[in-house]
């Protein structure tokens, strides 16, 4: 499917053979090349300083450590991130709807939302940790990390509603809430999902930064522990796991979008 979409613009004056390559192939080849280069760098560099773990070494570490080391920590981080993701997005979506319905509120509060984006999570993390014990501080950090992007994408989406459809609802006597329900919410889906996809990895980042500050369990905790123990392959391994979880969350959101709002995917292309 992607091949069909990318083929037309890559064929300007390229030879015929190239046109028949599927669109994902160069990307795959590039990734494979980078993994091979990584392995080479790790092997060549590894001798003197050993700070780059090779892909094979990382796989061996996974095998040696076993599932038991990774799973409880992944679960802990995902749990915090998911709760933060939920609350942050819920607040953002509700606020976006209020902003569109009552523009006066938007003027004052949108600036505050910008300030919340500029608020460095690493700076307020210690404050939150002092104020709240346990998972709460991590959940707040995760929620803060997703709030702004979702708010903006939802706002853009709600505003992108087709004026003719809005007029139609109005002509049949519908008020602004009716317009919201019948037109705007559906129109916001393509843009909202763009925001939600970025939000998933961002929530993980918030949770992990919170864990750096002290927690019993979680990917952040084990990553710091392996770094200070100078356990190179494991630090790499956990970084890769964190990356993979973020990628999976991103992919999952894209999948949900296809199921919930398949037309949104088409709209964007």
């Amino acid at each position: 499917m992607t091949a069909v979409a990318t083929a037309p613009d890559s064929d300007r004056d390229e030879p015929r053979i190239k046109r028949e390559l599927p669109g994902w192939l160069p990307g795959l080849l590039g990734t494979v090349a980078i993994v091979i280069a990584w392995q080479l760098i790790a092997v060549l560099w590894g001798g003197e300083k050993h700070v780059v773990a090779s892909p094979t070494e990382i796989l061996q570490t996974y095998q040696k450590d076993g599932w038991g080391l990774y799973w409880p920590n992944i679960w802990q981080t995902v749990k915090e991130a998911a709760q933060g993701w939920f609350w942050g997005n819920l607040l953002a979506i509700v606020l976006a709807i209020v902003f569109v319905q009552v523009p006066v509120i938007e003027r004052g509060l949108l600036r505050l939302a910008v300030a919340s984006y500029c608020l460095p999570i690493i700076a307020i993390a210690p404050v939150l940790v002092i104020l709240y014990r346990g998972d709460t501080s991590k959940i707040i950090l995760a929620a803060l990390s997703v709030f702004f992007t979702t708010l903006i994408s939802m706002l853009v989406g709600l505003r992108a509603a087709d004026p003719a459809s809005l007029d139609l609802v109005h002509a049949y006597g519908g008020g602004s809430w009716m317009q919201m329900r019948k037109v705007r919410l559906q129109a916001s889906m393509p843009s909202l999902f763009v925001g939600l996809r970025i939000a998933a990895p961002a929530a993980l980042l918030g949770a992990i930064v919170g864990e750096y500050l002290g927690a019993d369990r979680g990917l952040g905790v084990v990553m710091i522990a392996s770094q200070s123990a100078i356990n190179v392959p494991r630090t790499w391994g956990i970084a890769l796991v964190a990356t993979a979880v973020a990628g999976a969350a991103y992919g999952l959101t894209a999948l949900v979008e296809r199921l919930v709002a398949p037309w949104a995917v088409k709209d964007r292309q």
Partner: protein
Amino acid sequence: MTMATTTPDAPIASTPTTVVAFNGPDTWTIVKRVARVLLGGLISFAIAMLVWWILVKLVDKPRQTRTPGDVFAYLFTDKGAAANRQEMLESGKITLRDAALGFFAGTVAAVITSCIFVLKRGVEQATMPLAMALRTVPLVAITPLIALIFGRDLLAVTVIAGIVTFFPTLVNVTLSLRSVPSEQIDLMRAYGANDRVTLLKVQFPSSLPALFASMRIAAPLALIGAMLAEWLATGKGMGYLILQSGATFKIDRLWAATFLVTFASVILYTIISAVETVVLARYAPGKSRKVL
């Protein structure tokens, strides 16, 4: 001068609005727009202070919280205020340098890479999927790994602040270099311009809005990246000061430092917004900045 750079896109622009705006807004309009952005920053500040104060009163934990007034006292009117300010200034300078170095290195590298991508399609096809994937990854979250690789000095901090800036900028700028209307490219071809000239005269100016939008979004991230690296790698600067204040329960210092860092972050964001407004007025007069 501006006319010369915008000439290629004006005559063939399809919408009448762009043609009207061909002469560009006058300086006064630009000054007004910039003033509006600055005023907006001032209003944000006032509202943020108010909300901070309300939140502190709501949470009602006087031992752990400080109001804006307390922070002001700590920095200006308390007995040791001068020493406190000195301490903040020293750490702040280090952090600002760290973040700025990474931010500029990341931006420049991203722009150069995008240009290479546009000139050499094969390179883009091979590496862009990976760049797209990395853009979605919370790179700041792997700071411990970067500290492990690049050691415990300035390099690690620069690398983190740099990659945080690099990937979003790369993706946004490359996409916008590609999204120039094909008529404009065709016109350049018809006049015998090669790819490099087209890139310089048509594609690069039209991607400036995307570049500034990316910079605006990346600046707070670069600051976060630099501070995290300071805490986990170098043990200097604001990042370390804040973490250490939290750990040793120096609440006044913790709140003052948190305030200053946030303030600096908002200021940077506002400055870039102001510059962006000017650039948009010159290079994309048709569209105003939609997203704050």
